[in-house]
């Protein structure tokens, strides 16, 4: 742990009367992004606030650059660490430039008057985050996406080594989510920032994070790279999902699998079946499908929705055994749907299944 730029040791966080999480050991290097994921109310914000020093630590230590954070003076800390919180700011007659300029606070003198250098830093930060166009507009009157970018520019202008963000993408639509996270990634890379944030979007968390902390209901369950975290069925456990499913490889979510014995057999594969699967799910019709290679895009959807599934490893041949079980499944179903007509060289069994199904009276194209 001690190699990280920021790391915690035996950290316990919470409130005077109630410890929320205990024994947290996490770390992040410079230029890296560390993301907290986990269910609502588990304590992601509490962890962030504790690292930032907004909450007193219950126990343990936060180290920044090998120094105990509690030994760093308020002023020095404010030049090292900046924050972007979810709660909406209630500003009064402040332009976006004014808000960004508050980031210079730790660098100004007794009366907080900006010098030429401060002004230049403000303009630079705004140019970097591309908000100069609306710099003179009232902060209270711009959109959520713009506001979040202003807050990021404010944090950047504080020239920190570490930025903490609490669910920075919450109010943003997909375009602004992507823009915002891209900016954040650029900043982390170019300015060698350590970024620690919480995210709700698991798919984005998986993509942007160098490391992920999983904050469960009672403890920090896991800490590691996205590869280590996104293991099969873990997200369902972490979030206590009981309805529907989450696929860790694609980060795709599906609603509940229709109940009962399969009534329809779907010949799918080569990404041809997903929409049919979902249409059957919407009507509540249980179905069987096959024969799917596990690297097929239909596979995660089928795994989530099909009552019965014949599948095969991506690197194996299908084989007559699987063909036989697919035929048997199909023969038990009331009807058959074929989603494809063309088959690759390595799947002659699927072609044979197709021809077999066409001869059935219940066949539908």
């Amino acid at each position, binding site marked *: 742990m001690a190699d990280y730029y920021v790391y915690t040791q035996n950290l316990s966080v919470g409130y005077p009367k109630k410890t929320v999480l205990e024994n947290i050991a996490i770390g992040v290097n410079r230029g890296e992004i560390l993301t907290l994921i986990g269910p609502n109310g588990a304590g992601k914000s509490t962890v962030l606030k504790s690292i930032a020093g907004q909450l007193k630590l219950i126990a343990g230590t936060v180290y920044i650059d090998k120094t105990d954070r509690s030994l760093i003076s*308020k002023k020095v800390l404010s030049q090292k660490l900046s924050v972007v919180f979810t709660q909406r700011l*209630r500003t009064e007659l402040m332009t976006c430039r004014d808000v960004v300029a508050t980031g210079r606070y730790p660098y100004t003198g007794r009366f907080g008057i900006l010098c030429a250098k401060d002004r230049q830093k403000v303009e630079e930060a705004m140019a970097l985050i591309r908000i100069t166009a609306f710099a003179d507009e009232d902060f209270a009157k711009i959109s959520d996406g713009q506001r979040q970018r202003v807050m990021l520019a404010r944090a950047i202008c504080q020239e920190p080594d570490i930025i903490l963000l609490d669910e920075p993408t919450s109010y943003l639509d997909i375009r602004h989510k992507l823009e915002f996270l891209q900016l954040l990634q650029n900043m982390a890379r170019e300015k060698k920032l350590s970024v620690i944030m919480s995210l709700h979007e698991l798919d984005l968390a998986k993509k942007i994070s160098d490391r992920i902390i999983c904050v469960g209901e009672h403890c920090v369950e896991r800490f590691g790279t996205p590869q280590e975290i996104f293991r099969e069925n873990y997200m369902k456990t972490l979030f206590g999902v009981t309805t529907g499913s989450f696929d860790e490889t694609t980060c795709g979510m599906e609603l509940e699998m229709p109940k009962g014995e399969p009534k329809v057999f779907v010949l799918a594969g080569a990404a041809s079946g997903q929409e049919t699967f979902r249409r059957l799910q919407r009507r509540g019709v249980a179905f069987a499908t096959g024969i799917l290679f596990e690297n097929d895009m239909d596979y995660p959807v089928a795994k989530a929705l099909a009552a019965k599934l014949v599948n095969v490893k991506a690197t194996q041949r299908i084989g007559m055994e699987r063909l036989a079980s697919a035929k048997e499944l199909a023969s038990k179903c009331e009807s058959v749907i074929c989603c494809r007509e063309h088959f690759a060289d390595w799947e002659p069994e699927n072609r044979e299944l197709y021809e077999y199904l066409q001869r059935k009276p219940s066949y539908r194209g």
Partner: protein
Amino acid sequence: MRRTRAVFAFAVLAVLLVLTAVLNVIIGSVRIPLADVLEIFAGRGADVTARTILWQIRLPRTAAAAVLGGALALSGYLLQTFFHNPIAGPFVLGISSGAKLTVALLLVFAARRVASISSAVMIASAFAGALLAMGFVLIMARVVDKMSMLIVGGVMIGYICSAVTDIIVTFADDSDIVNLHNWSRGSFSGITWENVAVMSVLVFAAALFIFLLSKPISAYRLGEMYAQNMGVNLKLLRVCFVLLSSMLAACITAFAGPVSFVGIAVPHLVKRLFGTAKPILMIPACFLGGSVFCLFCDLLARTLFAPTEMSISTVTAVFGAPIVIIILLRKQRA
């Protein structure tokens, strides 16, 4: 451009201050023309009555209205910043009424034992009452986070304090409450130079202190979390907020009784005038604005139905309450 606007706005306030001050000095039951005023200042004026009126009544009253008006607006500004609430002020939060209660107690129970009560003792008792009311408001603010609830709670505290004050006044001897009645409704009358000296020292000291705090206050505007991240010592700042706003409210109440709405109306008007809410500008501007507003209202209170004098709160309410309504309507729309 912003700088020009600030300079212009300060100039407007300064001109208005001089203008209202002069009008307050010359207008009254006895009209003293400006020329005579200047004569008296130069020590040449012959008319003894005019001289007495000017030195003993008009000047101290004008000075008090200016100083206390400034204090009132500043106290309102501090409370609004502290509670992140545009309609907070010493009057609506019940702080003035708390101060009124303790001063009334002092006047009724001490008046029989001592011949006269010094300004310092008056202020000390008002300060105690203001802090007491502020304590209740702070407890409420911990429980409720809604702006409207805080205000309703403050108004209730104000009513309770006023009710207790009324009970005390009702059961006090008439001789004890000769001055109490006028004072409890709010008035700048009967202020002496000694009062002016004491209040000026306290108010200017507090105002200077607040001005020195303008940097942390400006950080505080973004909310406590960001302020802390910027390295502000929050605990200390909160204590300063509470003590200074109570101190200012206490000064006003001790000398002029509870004066309504100035604390809300003036910061609001001044922010519009300056087009910004930067504390480093707002602190002096609110002070000036409060002075102008109170001088203007006191002029009306004295002269509108002369020789009958209205309470200052009546006049400030007429101008101040509509502004509160406007703020509320705007908030609702936003």
